[in-house]
């Protein structure tokens, strides 16, 4: 029977290697040999490059790789694992089965102050340019969940600290945590189980709330009916989206499997033009110009369905509401929380300028110079919307 084991293992190995992995390995080996025998310029390729290539090929090109990831997640689930440590992140399964990440210890005063600094700077810019300002505090999912007792989760405490400091400094704000609690929304209604982002329905609610707050504070005028949930069609794609945490832990790590994904589109006519630097402008109805159905394909491990909304994160996106040209000019500084908010917010504005100013190499390109952009644009309102960490 050891023979049977060996033959099964050989077959299994062959099946996994068949196709892309095998041809990539062969090609890479050929390249190495060519360099070693002098058929290609020496010194440009060596064992270290070959090693890196082979490891990458075997990590990324084996057949049925994702089935194995799902199988591994089932094993972890059955063993009672709640914390999954991978090479680049740690994901925790909450008591409810929800997946959590980016759990923080309690912040000290200095850290809280550092969180408020960019918000205050943006508020000053808005004031200097005569724009109404609103800071939207978006709670992260761990605020609502109980992680395991061996994991520190002070995200809720930190949210309250940042909120308290925001109030103390007199910054106009929207506390989404309280809003959601008042509305009696559960964490499953607000957030995806397998991702850190909030659901499209939460994004629509957020857009409506922002407009209501701007209206109350600054007299913002907008077509309220265009943000009425009854005016939208909801198409639910069942078991469709495996979020960022789910991709890292595997499909079967929680009882939820993959998330359902709602495509929420207006029932009424719309006409937008959306522009991103370096890309051709998109013109058309809401779903054609502001959503990107390319990401709607069902591919648990390689598609990020969340970015159907907005098409992703960009340093600068301009959206013109061609049916509402006299509407307000709004500039929103956001992170990925804004993906499901800005398409709906665009329904209420004449122009919506969406800025992602996160540091680092994501999104691609350098952050824009907000000071000159705002002074040139002279928006009516400046909104800050990011996850509150």
């Amino acid at each position: 029977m050891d023979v049977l084991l060996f033959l099964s293992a050989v077959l299994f190995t062959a099946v996994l290697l068949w196709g892309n992995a095998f041809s990539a390995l062969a090609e890479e080996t050929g390249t190495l040999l060519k360099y070693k025998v002098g058929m290609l310029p020496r010194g440009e390729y060596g064992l270290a490059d070959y090693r890196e290539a082979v490891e990458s090929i075997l990590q990324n090109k084996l057949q049925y790789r994702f089935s194995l990831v799902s199988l591994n997640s089932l094993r972890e689930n059955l063993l009672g694992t709640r914390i999954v440590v991978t090479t680049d992140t740690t994901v925790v399964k909450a008591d409810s089965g929800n997946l959590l990440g980016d759990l923080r210890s309690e912040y000290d005063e200095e850290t809280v102050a550092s969180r408020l600094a960019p918000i205050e700077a943006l508020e000053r810019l808005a004031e200097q340019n005569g724009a109404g300002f609103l800071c939207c505090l978006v709670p992260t999912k761990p605020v609502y969940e109980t992680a395991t007792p061996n994991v520190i989760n002070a995200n809720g405490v930190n949210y309250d600290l940042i909120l308290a400091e925001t109030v103390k400094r007199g910054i106009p704000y929207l506390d989404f945590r309280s809003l959601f609690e008042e509305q009696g929304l559960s964490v499953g209604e607000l957030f995806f189980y397998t991702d850190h982002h909030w659901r499209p329905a939460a994004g629509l609610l957020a857009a409506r709330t922002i407009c209501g707050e701007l209206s109350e504070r600054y007299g913002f005028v907008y077509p309220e009916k265009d943000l009425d949930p009854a005016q939208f069609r909801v198409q639910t794609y069942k078991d469709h989206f495996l979020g960022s945490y789910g991709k890292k832990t595997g499909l079967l790590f929680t009882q939820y499997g993959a998330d359902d994904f709602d495509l929420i589109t207006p029932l009424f006519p719309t006409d937008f033009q959306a522009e991103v630097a370096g890309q051709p402008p998109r013109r058309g109805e809401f779903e054609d110009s502001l959503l990107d159905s390319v990401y709607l394909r069902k591919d648990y491990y390689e598609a990020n369905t969340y970015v159907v909304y907005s098409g992703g994160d960009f340093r600068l996106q301009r959206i013109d509401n061609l049916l509402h040209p006299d509407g307000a000019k709004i500039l929103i500084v956001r992170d990925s929380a804004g993906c499901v908010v800005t398409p709906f917010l665009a329904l209420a504005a004449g122009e919506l300028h969406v800025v992602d100013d996160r540091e680092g190499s994501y999104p691609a390109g350098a952050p824009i110079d907000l000071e000159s952009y705002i002074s040139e644009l002279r928006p009516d309102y400046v909104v800050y919307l990011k996850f509150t960490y």
Partner: protein
Amino acid sequence: MLFSSLPFLFFFLPVVLAVYYLLLRKNRPLQNVFLFLASLFFYAWGEPRFVLVLMLSIAVNWMAGLAIVRFGRRTRLARFLVALDVIFNLSFLFVYKYLGFMGRVFTRLSGCELSLPALALPIGISFFTFQAISYVVDIYRGKGEAQKNILSVGLYISFFPQLIAGPIVRYETVAAEIQGRRESAEDFFSGFSRFVEGLAKKVLLANKLAILADTVFGAAADGAPLSVLFSWLGAAAYALQLFFDFSGYSDMAIGLGRMFGFHFLENFNYPYISTSISEFWRRWHMSLGTWFRDYVFIPLGGSRVSRKRLLLNLFIVWVLTGLWHGANYTYIVWGLLYFVLLVFERFTGFDKKRKDSLRALRWAYTMFFVILGHVIFRSDSIGAAACMLRSMFALNGNAFSDGMFTGYFAQNVRLMIIGCLLSTPLFKRIGERCAGSAVYAFARAGLLFGLFVLSVASLVSNAYNPFIYFNF
């Protein structure tokens, strides 16, 4: 390159097996050359610059072996050559492994600052150096013929199954097999089964337990307060991690060796069922224990000497055993702990006492000190070890239990139960009882295949896969 890695499983091993058995089947010399070159490639995959170190070791030891035979075994000159060779090999080890440490020791003892460079350690140097010494000494003792072909010596010293994590293969056990081995289907397939067992132990058990162990020991090193139960949980997790990692690697090495017709000796024999420290060391890392016995303890006179001299011999052996594991005071303390315990058992006849009614107590005593030893072994420093030990015995003013314990316990208890069961010969005995049963054989093959698939799934998922032999 690690055995528990995708490049080894899907690239290196299939290619080596295919070339060895399909292309070079009828040519033993070419097979040996190929295995040697493949082993160098295996080593160079992770440590290209240290291949030269390995090759230098091979060259010097090959020459020493030939010289000893040339000038006659057991002659004065031969003894001198052996001594020279041992000094050369140990100098290698000293320079790469202990130079920086010795500088720190000198500074601490003398008060004068002596900064010596801490060189990067070639992986496996402790293993292949001891094998090289074994080669020369066994030739001197007449327990094996000197290889005329340097590539054969290279194959013995650098053979990839045992190159980076043992077992330490004594030359006398494989001398005849370098040229005269006979591969068989039974060895090949049973070797593969053994390899899969080892892979599963390493990937599915050791790697998972490592997360818990690393968390606890990391917290202790940072001086974080650990509850009593949490620190014991971490210590127990490390005991299981270390056993499954090390014995898993040994299983893979022995299995791979068998696939190529080599028969390495066993390295572990259910050490956690031991009822004395003496017994533990007859079951744990047996290749190292027997190496020190045959190449250090016995040449020093062994146990057929006066009590004082015996104490000295044991002291030397256990300090060296500790130091072999790494250049740190913790390893010396670890070695001395076992020295004290073994002296106690030897001089009280503890190991000889066989009252079954006290077996459970004797087992508890053994495991208690083994775990304490593991704690010292694993800690980065004496201070960290002390912190961990104080936590374990509630000497830190720490709580008895906390959320860290309850959380990690709940998440690891199933795995630890499996680990504890597999630490015993229970399944081996079941296997022996069912030997001959086709149903059992089929079920076993199916289970091992399932474990192979799960191991690959874990590796593909980029799961935590630590390599704990970087000190060796």
